[in-house]
């Protein structure tokens, strides 16, 4: 099963690197916020999967905390754009 988790982690990182294109070149601030939000939700999964790869899965706490704080980051970023 470790190979499945490792494969899943690598595919998620590949998807994040594809999304990085939108972060760097994406026209305008909104595309960047969307792409960073997407990479953030992928990060939650990568954190859980690394816990399983190392065989100590009781570190889901970090992923939970990150999920909570990702929302704050997104809402704060949308607030920073003046209407």
């Amino acid at each position: 099963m470790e190979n499945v988790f490792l494969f899943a982690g690598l595919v998620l990182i590949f998807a994040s690197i594809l999304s990085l294109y939108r972060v760097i070149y994406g026209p305008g601030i909104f595309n960047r916020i969307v792409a960073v939000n997407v990479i953030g939700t992928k990060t939650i999964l990568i954190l859980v999967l690394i816990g399983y790869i190392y065989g100590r899965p009781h570190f889901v706490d970090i992923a939970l905390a990150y999920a909570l704080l990702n929302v704050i980051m997104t809402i704060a970023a949308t607030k920073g754009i003046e209407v």
Partner: protein
Amino acid sequence: MIWALDISMLIFLVISAVAAIAVKDLLSSVIILSLYSLIMAIVWVELRAVDVAFTEAAVGAGITTVLFILTIMKTSGRYEE
């Protein structure tokens, strides 16, 4: 095989650091900086520093980004001249 994950994360880290410095729009730069710190959190879980990863996730996503954005709002300028 974990080294593949490690190396790709590190390259990701360098790219996002360069992007954070090079982008002209200040708000975009702050958002890329938060991306940088979340990649850093993954690197620290890989190096088995769980507490440090927790702190970095909390600080990088929660506090530093919010403070930077509020400063940009107060200094009333998104674009660098």
